[in-house]
């Protein structure tokens, strides 16, 4: 009996959300030292240099785009939407995992969110920044983007509120605002910790400025808790609503392959799917290079693998239903659309997508795969690629064979299409590198609370 009991404790410990041995003090030191004392390492500098080079490429590509117009891309009639919109949908989908982790799981009292929520929220903000850029770049006259906003103007015109593109503006801007607020409110106590631990005057002033006079008094904590809960309540519906609105961009239109009622749930599942893949793509190198495997444990990876598996199955169901409905409906255009995807000119894209999104992720059924960081990293990259291809298939492959055959064509990306896609990664990773250098990538406050609770539980046991 006694030996059995100790056996369970050992297994439990191996499988805990935080490695045993952490105390309130060591958690704070560990996380804050990455920012304050570790300094700028060669590895960070190298990664940042690559990201920044891509960011410069983005700026060059945007400069040329503003000079010459969207004609530098491969788009034309009939395929007027291609890379830019694909990138938009993909990036905004990425963001959804961050919101799900930070808001939805907070309300659900899921403790495993603790060590991953901070950088997942940062990922959300940077991904939404990348996403928000694309519809503007896609405009013929991007300097008139503010026409999309309802403001009193000398034209006495409002935007067309019946257009899903206007809903998009509201969905994305709300999402951006709430995400930034949520992230920033969560950062306040940690910024104050950094302020107090910083040795350099400039760090003290900067962190002090942004911590807004946080003193850690009981009333501060009370308001902090209330604000976090309220913002979580506001943010949770956004997990579902934002990508639903994005899916309306397509499902409201009459193009075969777009006009489908399955789109909203299917897009939301896909968004969470790709978002968790991106969280893993970021988390696995982070825990390795910054020695955070005591906080982002194998159990975290395991759980995220399960979430991907579940959402991946929903996405697969979406693909199957799309195919089924195309035949069951008896609609010749839908029928043609599906056949064109499978055996048409873009068949390689379609089957790569099926391999990436359905076939390979089935490996996640195996516990050994979910608990192997390298294998999981590989699967997460594959899913990221697959989800990008999914949007490409939905957008380009649907458009290139619309109703009348006189209206058929092909889309071939130009070097500027690729430059902007690569550049958006540059923007994302530039921001992310700056984030891990200057801000605590794991929430110190929440980790301390978790350690405190674990300690109490162990004492009780």
């Amino acid at each position: 009996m006694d030996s059995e009991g100790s056996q369970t404790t050992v297994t439990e410990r191996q499988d805990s959300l935080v490695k045993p041995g952490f105390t309130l003090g060591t958690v704070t030191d560990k996380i804050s030292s990455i920012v304050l004392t570790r300094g700028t390492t060669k590895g960070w500098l190298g990664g940042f240099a690559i990201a920044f080079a891509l960011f410069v490429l983005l700026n060059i590509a945007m400069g040329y785009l503003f000079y010459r117009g969207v004609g530098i891309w491969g788009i034309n009639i009939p395929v007027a939407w291609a890379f830019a919109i694909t990138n938009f949908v993909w990036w905004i989908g990425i963001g959804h995992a961050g919101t799900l982790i930070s808001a939805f799981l907070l309300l659900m009292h899921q403790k495993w969110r603790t060590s991953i929520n901070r950088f997942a929220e940062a990922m959300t903000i940077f991904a939404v920044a990348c996403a928000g850029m694309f519809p503007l770049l896609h405009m013929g006259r991007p300097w008139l983007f503010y026409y999309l906003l309802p403001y009193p103007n000398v034209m006495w015109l409002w935007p067309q509120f019946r257009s899903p593109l206007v809903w998009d503006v509201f969905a994305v801007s709300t999402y951006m605002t709430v995400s930034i607020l949520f992230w920033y409110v969560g950062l306040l106590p940690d910024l104050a910790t950094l302020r107090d631990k910083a040795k350099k005057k400039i760090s003290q002033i900067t962190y002090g400025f942004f911590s807004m006079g946080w003193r850690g008094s009981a009333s501060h904590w009370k308001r902090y808790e209330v604000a976090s809960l309220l913002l979580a309540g506001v943010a949770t519906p956004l997990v579902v609503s934002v990508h639903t609105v994005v899916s309306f961009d397509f499902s409201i239109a009459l193009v075969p392959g777009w006009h489908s009622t399955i789109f909203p749930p299917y897009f939301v599942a896909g968004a969470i799917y790709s978002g968790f893949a991106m969280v893993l793509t970021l988390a696995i190198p982070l825990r390795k290079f910054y020695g955070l495997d005591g906080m982002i444990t194998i159990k975290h990876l395991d759980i995220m693998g399960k979430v991907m598996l579940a959402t991946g199955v929903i996405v697969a169901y979406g693909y199957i239903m799309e195919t089924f409905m195309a035949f069951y409906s008896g609609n010749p255009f839908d029928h043609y659309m599906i056949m064109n995807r499978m055996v048409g000119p873009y068949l390689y894209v379609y089957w790569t997508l099926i391999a990436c999104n359905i076939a390979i992720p089935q490996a996640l059924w195996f516990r050994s795969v979910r608990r192997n960081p390298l294998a999981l990293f590989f699967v997460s990259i594959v899913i990221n690629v697959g989800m990008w291809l999914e949007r490409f298939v939905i957008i380009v492959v649907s458009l290139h064979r619309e109703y009348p055959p006189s209206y058929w064509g092909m889309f071939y990306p130009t070097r500027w299409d690729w430059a902007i896609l690569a550049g958006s990664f540059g923007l994302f990773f530039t921001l992310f590198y700056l984030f891990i250098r200057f801000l605590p990538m794991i929430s110190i406050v929440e980790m301390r609370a978790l350690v405190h609770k674990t300690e109490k539980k162990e004492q009780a046991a």
Partner: protein
Amino acid sequence: MAQVFHRSANLISKVSIIAIVILIGVLTYGFYQIEESAWYSNIGLSRQQPVPFSHRHHVGELGIDCRYCHTSVEKSAFAGLPPTETCMSCHSQIWTNADMLEPVRASYRDNVSISWLRVNELPQFVYFDHSIHVRMGVGCTTCHGPIASMPLTYRFGTEYMSWCIDCHRQPAKNLRPRAEVFNPYYQQPSAVHPVSYNGVTYTDQLTMGRQLMKDYKVASLQDCDTCHR
């Protein structure tokens, strides 16, 4: 540990929050003030013309009808600028030696048009037709202002889209009987200045306007492609 910030930072931070709100309000207010200003919209702008032609003299004092010079206003999109011959129909007889009119005589002699500068000019992406507006009972002075009292012609309306669409949304506010379209002194019906139309005397613009909309079959056209074709 020493405090990073001085005590005064507490006050500064609170004040700055209020200041940001006020600043945004002031900037917004300023923006709309500029947009409405004559400086920005060119209301009241008169231009240096080759001949200082006075509508006040010709329309107000002499009572020449609009259509004597702007001949195509009832038939085409463009109201028409008079050829020099129109000027000379009078000025070959009167003021024949006036220095002021030398460019007119030179134009007639050399067969070169006078280069009038346009005071009202809509952008190229706007389709506008004078004839239909005149036919539907939109008076000249509704858009061009008190032309009979303009020594030099100036711009009366902003020419913003809001200016057009204000009337397109509610034509009844501005319509007048066809007989009054070219009357430069026309005043909207009121208790003091009743207007009679079709045997009925109106003292209220909206009542008459609605009747006119019915009689002239005026629709409130607000589609984008009404003007942006």
